[in-house]
């Protein structure tokens, strides 16, 4: 045994042991948090990977659903949320997880889909097991309340309209695709911190317009404060947040009425159908029928966000994903300019 002649542990050995313990502890920490096998499903904690930051809409939805979904599972297990704050890494982690049903997470359509079409990403969403579509947020084009743009025609007639976005994500993708379809001569300025930073940039005059869903909290608050107004909402029906804003359908752009953010829940490829059904039904029941969940949603003061909850089953989620791929492939040249 290494050590001092008197049998005590020497300083060098002690520090070696410390380094070893730290390394072992790191591996052990990782191992302890990975899923194991169980006889009855579910029999252990289900991890919900949130590739977004913990503080945004994705984090709020995940926290709310994971808090109440266990009551709708056959066995009493916990559901914990892990926020990764990196869409590529987070989606990749969902894709490569063990297909035992104990790791699920958000799949962003069209954000993650657009990145897969335009880049060599370390995941393949087409292989993933889809569990449900939790919510749909129709996008819009918004301008400051005192903007010179009063209508869609004004924007189409302009030489150039500057838009802002965080960059690299769903706002850039949908902004670029929708303005291209609407013949708005868009110039995109990126690098803003989330939807709040983007709206701040617009209000202080960095650029003229944004493409974001009115249900996202900073947009909702800006609408309520009459700081911004919508030029068009990409939906069939008008929004109660902006009842004066015309929809894409009213303006003759029916093809754009589905332009928005789909929040899907999925897991790695190959999750057993029975387990996938258990998870899918628990999520749907939580959203559709759980009184406590709805009260929790109101308590979180994100009412507008939660009004977008539209759970659909596994088949509908697959169709939405396939449609997302079709749309993104049709706009591949636009994606390559912005991703």
């Amino acid at each position, binding site marked *: 045994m290494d050590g001092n002649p008197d049998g005590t542990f020497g300083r060098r050995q002690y520090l070696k042991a410390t380094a070893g313990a730290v390394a072992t502890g790191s591996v052990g920490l990782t191992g302890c948090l990975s899923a194991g096998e169980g006889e009855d499903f579910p029999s252990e904690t289900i991890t919900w990977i949130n590739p977004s930051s913990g503080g945004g809409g994705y984090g709020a939805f995940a926290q709310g659903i994971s808090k109440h979904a266990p009551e709708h599972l056959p066995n009493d297990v916990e559901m914990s949320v892990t926020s990764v704050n990196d869409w590529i890494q987070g989606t990749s982690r969902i894709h490569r997880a063990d297909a035992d049903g104990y790791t699920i997470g958000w799949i962003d359509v069209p954000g993650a889909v657009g990145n897969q079409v335009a880049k060599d990403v370390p995941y393949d969403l087409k292989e993933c097991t889809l569990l449900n579509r939790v919510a749909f947020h129709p996008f819009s084009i918004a301008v400051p309340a005192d903007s010179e743009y009063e209508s869609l025609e004004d924007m189409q007639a302009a030489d150039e309209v500057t838009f802002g976005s965080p960059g690299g994500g769903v706002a*850039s993708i949908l902004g670029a695709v929708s303005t291209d379809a609407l013949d708005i001569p868009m110039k995109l300025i990126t690098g803003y911190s989330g939807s709040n930073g983007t709206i701040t940039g617009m209000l202080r005059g960095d650029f003229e317009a944004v493409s974001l869903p009115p249900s996202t909290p900073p947009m909702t608050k800006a609408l309520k404060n009459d700081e911004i107004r919508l030029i068009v909402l990409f939906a069939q029906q008008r929004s109660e947040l902006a009842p004066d804003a015309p929809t894409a359908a009213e303006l003759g752009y029916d093809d754009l009425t589905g332009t928005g953010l789909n929040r899907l829940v999925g897991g790695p490829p190959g999750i057993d159908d029975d387990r996938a059904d258990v998870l899918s039904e628990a999520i749907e029941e939580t959203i559709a029928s759980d009184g406590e969940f709805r009260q929790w949603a109101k308590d979180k003061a994100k009412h507008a966000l939660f009004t977008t909850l539209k759970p659909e089953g596994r088949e509908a989620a697959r169709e939405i994903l396939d449609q997302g791929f079709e749309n993104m492939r049709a706009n591949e040249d636009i994606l390559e300019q912005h991703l």
Partner: protein
Amino acid sequence: MSGTVQAVLAALSTVFAWPTILFVFLGALIGVVTGVIPGLGGAVAMVLLLPFTFVLSPAQAMVLLVSVMGGTAFGGSLTAILVNIPGTPPNTATCFDGYPMTKEGRADEAIGISATASALGAVFGLVIIVAMVPVARQTIFLFQPPEFFWLAVGGLTVVATVGRGNLYRSLVSAGFGLMLGFVGFQGQVTATRYTYDIAYLWKGISVLPLLIGLFAVTEAIRLGLRDDSIEVDEATGPSGDRRSWLDGVKHVLAHPVLFLRAAGSGTIIGMIPGVGGMLANFVAYAQAVKTSDDPDSFGRGNPSGVLASEASNDAKDAGAILPTVVLGIPGSVSMVVLLSGFLLHGVTPGRQLLNENLDILFTIIVALLITNLVVSGLGIVTSRYLIRITRLSTDLLVPFVLVFSVSGAYVINRSVGDVAVTLLFGLIGFAIVAFDYSRIAVVLGVILGPIAETAFHQSLAISNGDPAIFVTRPISLVLVALVVASLVVPPLRRARAA
């Protein structure tokens, strides 16, 4: 105005509610202990604590982090005075006169000065930033990408002063930091840079794991290579004091002009993003020397040296809150961590925080105020016991720091890649220190480089490529003048003095 009053009242009720008030004391205690341990500054303690704030409410998390920051500054002054080791870099100037006072048997007096100047310095700084809150609402819309660019460039020019006289090594360090900051996807030019097809790097190198590595792991390695304990070889401590801490309190109160000058410069320098506390510390000390009737007594135990250093040190922490909150640009490394805490808890600095979360801003201010008052009082009482931490064996300290670093880095995103970054930058940080380069300059580059680059691209996009946007806006022009002056005036003064 009523909104501001309501926010203040809400902040007071939040901070004094149970268990939030507990986090003030807990944070203050952690801060003092961290400040006493050389090398482990407030930023390191805050970084290590950050992942564990997930279980707290946003207000409790902010209170805890701010209290750590407030406690660290005073804790660092204790080792500076008692054993001539600055617990944190901004306590450096405190050593110059604090330690000689200890050797003269005036340690309690020096601690009394430090405690009083620290507490009053924080109060002064906080009063200034509270007074600026109503203006900040308008200020936020005056600052656009060209101004952000110059603020970031202004922060980067400080690189010239952080290299302890070696400009070449500072520039190399900052260049290295800039390279690290440019890793990943850049939206405006739609380019993914220096990622070598490693998906982990697409979003850039995670800043928090990098900071944990660069500061905490590096210090663990340095401590691990030292024999015995942190304790210095001289027998020190407040023994046989002929003057008490009360004399220190009286000294501060008897020198209001010196105090105001030091706290004022500290607050202003603290507001400048990226400048850092050491500059505030040395500027205040230099002012005290230059305006004294007896400049030769400085460095030999002049109480005014301790006063100036500590008043500026705590005032700059208060000042640094304003750009962090109003502009989302961190005024110091501690503020980088605080900013990360904001974002992790869904609190976005800027318009949202000023409009809708003003109570959180005042919660931070009240917490920092109480922390400074608490640690100053407790510091006087407990200083002779706290100092024993510096005598702990590094065999005990190193494992503690390493385990905390690795687990802290992992918990942030549950990413093994983050752990790798932490360990790698622990080694890099050790090399930086061993070869006398500047970790501060590296951090300035990592933090400010991407801010400057993004603002640069945004500015040119706004102006359709016309670079005149950087100098034709009034605030930009003022900032350009300040940046140029900060680069030109010091060498001219040195040349004149020579």
